[in-house]
């Protein structure tokens, strides 16, 4: 069996007050879009921060393409957690050039790569606009372009549809489907079953820091199933 792009085992990190994630097992295969769905505060962002090294786990393991975080293939990873990597004083194009360099792309290869992603995500009108003058949605698109432009093998996006208009959601969805078809493993989170979660190959539900079940992305009423799962978990915990 091929090594998973992302493999988490028994991942635990708790904070004062008891919040955090506990014993999470999760994997994302090559060519797979895996959606992590949970209500606000369920632990989605904490889980993503742990697998990207932004937090250190209390216990458990993270493997990216079979390697631990200390020797992970970072140049083959793209992510967006909370805030887009967009500096207000720089134009859209300059921000993408910097992101390319930080992802290990040589200066000579960066310019045509930026040009491609500007076209792919319809960002040409904002190429010469400073990020501080962009709307929240366009800054988010810029951050997504920065995460995706180097065609990474591992993609981790935390609530990527935040602030996007319907056209932005569709172009993101298509960009992710294209990259997954090329072999990338994609992990996306959402607090609701949005357009991106609906194109996922797998949907895992997270609640109170634990994975509590899965949903069939092709199910007829997955919204109802999602709330039923969360409610029964809450009742079980309260009992």
């Amino acid at each position: 069996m091929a090594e998973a792009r992302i493999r988490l085992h028994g991942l635990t990190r708790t904070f004062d007050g008891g919040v955090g994630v506990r014993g999470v097992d999760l994997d994302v295969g090559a060519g797979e879009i895996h959606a992590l769905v949970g209500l606000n505060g369920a632990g989605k962002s904490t889980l993503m921060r742990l697998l990207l090294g932004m937090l250190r786990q209390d216990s458990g393991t993270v493997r990216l393409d079979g390697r631990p975080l200390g020797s992970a293939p970072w140049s083959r990873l793209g992510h967006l957690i909370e805030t887009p990597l967009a500096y207000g004083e720089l134009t859209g194009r300059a921000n993408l050039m910097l992101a390319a360099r930080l992802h290990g792309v040589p200066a000579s290869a960066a310019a045509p790569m930026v040009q491609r992603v500007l076209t792919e995500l319809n960002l040409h009108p904002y190429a010469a606009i400073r990020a501080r003058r962009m709307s929240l949605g366009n800054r988010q698109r810029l951050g997504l372009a920065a995460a995706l432009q180097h065609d990474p093998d591992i993609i981790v996006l935390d609530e990527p549809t935040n602030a996007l208009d319907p056209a932005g959601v569709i172009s993101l969805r298509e960009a992710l489907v294209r990259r997954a078809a090329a072999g990338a493993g994609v992990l996306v989170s959402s607090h609701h079953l949005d357009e991106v979660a609906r194109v996922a190959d797998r949907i895992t539900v997270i609640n109170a820091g634990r994975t509590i079940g899965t949903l069939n992305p092709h199910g007829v009423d997955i919204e109802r199933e999602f709330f039923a799962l969360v409610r029964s978990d809450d009742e079980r915990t309260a009992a």
Partner: protein
Amino acid sequence: MTTTTLRAALAVEARKATSARVVTSTTILLLVGIAVLAGATTLAAAGGNEQLMAKLGPSATQGGWTSLLSTASQITAAGGLLAFGVVLSWLFGREFADGTVTGLFALPVSRPTIALAKLIVYLLWSVGVATLLVLMVAGLGFATGAGPIEGTAPVALLRLWSLTVLTALLAVPAGWAATIGRGLLPGIATAIAILAAAQILVVAGTGGWFPFAAPALWTIFPGTVSASQMALVPLVPLTFGFLVLHAWHRLQLDR
């Protein structure tokens, strides 16, 4: 850390710094502020303002290059520390304030490499500021009729350049504080605290042994600071530079 990743981080940090209003406006404010204040106070002291003469000390009342450079050095030591502290706080603290720090994780360019690139860009900028400042003060001297640069003036101009670069190096704790405190204000507060401590220790008479005050005393009162006292000065940027890299290496987004 490799040469390739450091080169990439330097390109990124240099691009950010050259586009930043904070860096440009601080450079202009510092240079123009010191030139205007040094020129005005030198002229006022030459005009016999006794209060100002008492405040600036004997070397500032001798007229010519000696007065101008003594005054410029006093203003640089205090104003420079604040200005350099602001820029360093911004360089490090803005990543937290703007939320861009999340984008600096999970990259082939490590966080300590990015932090080192910030410090190198900062050092290069401060060398540029020091050079421009000396050129401006020299121009000011000519404009105000201080005469040709001769006698002790060339050495005093070199000392002003050294003081500016050393002051920039002494502000490095602000970068560490901005990292530990996750924002700009802890860095700026640290620069102010260093400045206040230096003033108090100079008045108390122990300034030479306090690395944050030694370069200013060495510039304004040459001969009052020993070589061993000056040798302590590089320990500040080296210690806090290491602490900055360590803090970025160990950084967690847990608060």
